[in-house]
């Protein structure tokens, strides 16, 4: 019975979405006039290269125009990690040598993980440092870094991340993000206001404060997700 009700609700939802999307012309150009922006999409596309010197306009939207929302997202992730840690984290004293990996990995997996781990860290750092030039950014880079740590954590029995260093890095990166926002508030009068641009468009050093913020977000997300995985892997089966 419950299954049929669920299917009915999904059908109603699907019908609502279908009727809504039918009203929107699919694939039509709805950006508006690019030279004299009258819609918000055209405004973003015009402003981000010209005013903010950012090649990737999505980054400009996420970190600058909608930077406050990004701060909210980072806070949500931080609260999730803190809540998980406060419930599941075991202190050293009560630790009963939890086996993270029960069976040893094969030599193939261990060697492969050893070779892939630095490359994955490099890719993650590349993604968040080039966030204002190429697709990707802080969240994506951080997630790639966490995936690299995950590979090592599930392959090697004795691979340990220093929990204190991770927590401090995470907190300092979060504080630095807020500090950059407050700098804009006190110097220019609005939270996360971007400095007048340094460097030229399409260069590594361009986009004012955007690369700096993305580096902080990348470090924060990477350490946070690594912590979550580390804590989850340490749970003892009850």
């Amino acid at each position, binding site marked *: 019975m419950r299954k049929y009700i669920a299917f009915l609700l999904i059908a109603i939802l699907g019908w609502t979405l279908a009727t809504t999307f039918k009203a929107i012309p699919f694939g039509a150009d709805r950006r508006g006039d690019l030279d004299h922006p009258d819609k918000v999409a055209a405004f973003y596309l015009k402003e981000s290269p010209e005013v903010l010197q950012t090649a990737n306009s999505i980054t400009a939207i996420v970190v600058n125009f909608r930077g406050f929302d990004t701060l909210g997202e980072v806070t949500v992730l931080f609260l999730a990690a803190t809540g998980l840690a406060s419930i599941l984290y075991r202190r050293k004293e009560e630790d009963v040598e939890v086996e993270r990996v029960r069976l040893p990995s094969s030599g193939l997996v261990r060697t492969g993980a050893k070779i892939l781990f630095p490359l994955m860290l490099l890719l993650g750092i590349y993604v968040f440092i080039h966030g204002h030039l190429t697709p990707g950014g802080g969240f994506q880079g951080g*997630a790639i870094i966490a*995936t690299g740590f995950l590979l090592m954590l599930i392959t090697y029995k004795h691979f340990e991340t220093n929990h204190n260093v991770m927590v401090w890095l995470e907190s300092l990166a979060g504080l630095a993000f807020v500090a950059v926002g407050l700098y804009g508030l006190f110097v220019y009068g609005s939270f996360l206001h971007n400095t007048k641009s340094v460097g030229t468009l399409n260069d590594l050093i361009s986009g004012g404060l955007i690369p700096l913020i993305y580096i902080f977000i990348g470090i924060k997300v990477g350490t946070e*997700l690594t912590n979550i995985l580390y804590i989850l892997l340490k749970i003892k089966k009850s």
Partner: protein
Amino acid sequence: MALILFLIIMAIILIAAAIYAVVQKDLLYAVLSTGIISVVLSVFFYLLQAPDVAITEAAIGIALTTIIFIITIRNTSRNEDEYREDHIKKF
């Protein structure tokens, strides 16, 4: 034409994996099939000119979410019905 055919096949795989994830009683296979959904979705995002979202979906959807679910399954129970009976016994 080849692209449209490819997209249709991918969409069929997507829907089939989603239905399999709901129907399957063995939770490990269900979680792995949600991983397949993420793979197909990230290809779709890339083809629809949203590379940012594609990277996010690839890193979070395929790797992290799947692994978190697998860790949870390892610490609870692999079979859906088995878990339900345990749950009823406990309370």
